[in-house]
């Protein structure tokens, strides 16, 4: 059963937990984990938000472009919309690959260090 956060844990245990978190926060491995997480999450978030807002803006203010036929009855507007689906799937896949290769091993290592220090 996990520790309940309701009310402080018995004094010494709580102190050990706090010390463990402080140690981990200063660990170079943690700085590296944070860097790797942000290196992906920040640019990817900016990219998909800009890409999505561009799509919304084009629906409003670039109608001539959106109405252009691509093939048969399929126009730019529909292709642009379907590309939003595609980009969402691709970014989700890339993030999961990044996370399992770059983040999970470090997080597991740090988690084990926490368990060792706190005794659980």
């Amino acid at each position, binding site marked *: 059963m996990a520790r309940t956060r309701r009310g402080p844990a018995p004094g010494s245990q709580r102190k050990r937990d706090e010390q463990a978190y402080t140690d981990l926060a200063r660990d170079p491995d943690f700085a590296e984990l944070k860097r790797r997480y942000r290196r992906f999450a920040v640019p990817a978030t900016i990219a998909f938000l800009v890409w*999505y807002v561009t799509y919304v803006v084009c629906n409003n203010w670039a109608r001539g472009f959106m109405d252009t036929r691509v093939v048969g009855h399929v126009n730019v507007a529909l292709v642009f919309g379907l590309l939003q689906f595609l980009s969402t799937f691709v970014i989700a896949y890339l993030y999961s690959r990044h996370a399992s290769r770059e983040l999970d091993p470090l997080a597991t290592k740090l988690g084990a260090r926490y368990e060792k220090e706190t005794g659980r």
Partner: protein
Amino acid sequence: MTPLLAPLAASDNRGLTIALFLAVVAVTLGITFWASRQNKTAADYYAGGRSFTGFQNGLAIGGDYMSAASFLGISGSIALYGYDGFLYSIGFLVAWLVALLLVAELLRNSGRYTMADQLAFRMRQVPVRTAAASSTIVVSIFYLLAQMVGAGSLVGLLLGVSSPGVKNLVIIAVGILMIVYVTLGGMKGTTWVQIVKAVLLIIGTLLITILVLAQFHFNLSELLGAAAEKSGKGEAFLQPGQLYGKDLVGKFDFLSLGLALVLGTAGLPHILIRFYTTPTAQTARKSVLWAIGLIGGFYLMTLVLGFGAAALVDTSKTSPIATSSGNAASPLLAQAVGGGEGTLGGAILLALISAVAFATILAVVAGLTLTSASSVAHDIYASVIKKGKASEKSEMIVVRVAAFGIGAVAIALAIPAQRLNIAFLVALAFAVAASANLPALLFNLFWRRFNTAGATASIYGGLIAAVVLVIFSPVGSGTATSLFPDANFAWFPLRNPGLVSIPIGFLCGILGTLLSKDTSSQERYDELEVRSLTGAGAEKAVAH
């Protein structure tokens, strides 16, 4: 939602539809009773023992998220307005990247049962939990009311009855069912109801999609061409502008809607608490990946359904599809591709899709009721009133009483709300989630300086801005479909407040933080950061 709905089902297949409805009720109640015997601890009740796999929780997220509004509403909107009907689903899908990249795993590691747990991690408990519980309850009740009013109309439509008495009975029945699911089944029962619903929804939609595409030789362009021709609008039906952005105000309104959709999902409390049902952050991530795949695939199928209905079923001004604001499109399309009215195949498919829609309503209302009841019991009762000294046993009694109370309030509000146009309730729920909850969640995770004053300022600021702007918009007054049609106090031109209220929420969070000298919240920031990224000390699954 129009008050007058043409009856859909002919009397010969009403029996079949009712039988399938009863089957859905029987299966979901069976699951609930099974789950009720497994609920031993608070973690079981609130978070399903944190024992769901990524795939199971991914299905449940889909079941929670794909409401009747998106199943019947989006395809109906495409059937009536063509391309513009598709736009909602894109915002709904892209929004999941915010949840995946910025929220899901970090929340799983640092929270416990409710959204407020995460926010109160390093803040003063009472003010922050009160604020977070307020916005949780407001968002969930708005969303719940929209679903329940929709349920009255939809079930009336699907069963072929339009009398107000029957709709009231349906609302009461749905309300009682959701109280039973939530009080007995808790998160475990609710999750399994959502999983069953998601599977039914995907199978049902896939079947109709294949049958529609088969009629057009699996050629999308041919389907689009037929839809454009039958709609009477020609190529314009396939282009932007039939529904949104007709004038300058309309264009900004659409931009505002788009922002609320993409930023709101990751702040919806009933979605956030789904991340707690998995054993680790990695499973939470996997569940969001499954959800993105399922929800994306589902929205692509609604595109086929919508254009299929435009091409194959009557969508003229007096047709049942037009008079039901599009809600009848999917069921009638199912009937058409099954062989048409009066055929056995048509009757079976119509009844099947109606039952899927009914299961959808039940799963979504159960999730919303559980979310609000959890917040009342865990945040308000245990933390604010009892200051963290309530026993787990008493908390488990309070959460059930709260579920009962919320169900009763929702029934009482939904019955008079039927005469209103309820579409704004969902838009408002997303706007509040994006303006109040998302800024607080993101600042808490990524800004060390963020403090109690900032958290309460962003929640109340975003919440009040969104609600006030909607009241003083054309949704509130000045038009025939407004809340107050006879008055006119609408000085805010946009029906969707997000464009203004989201920046207000973020700004309030920044100002509240900087204007307060409180730095105590920084003491536990290291702990929050380490825990959210590594999972060290995070809540573990319950071992049975």
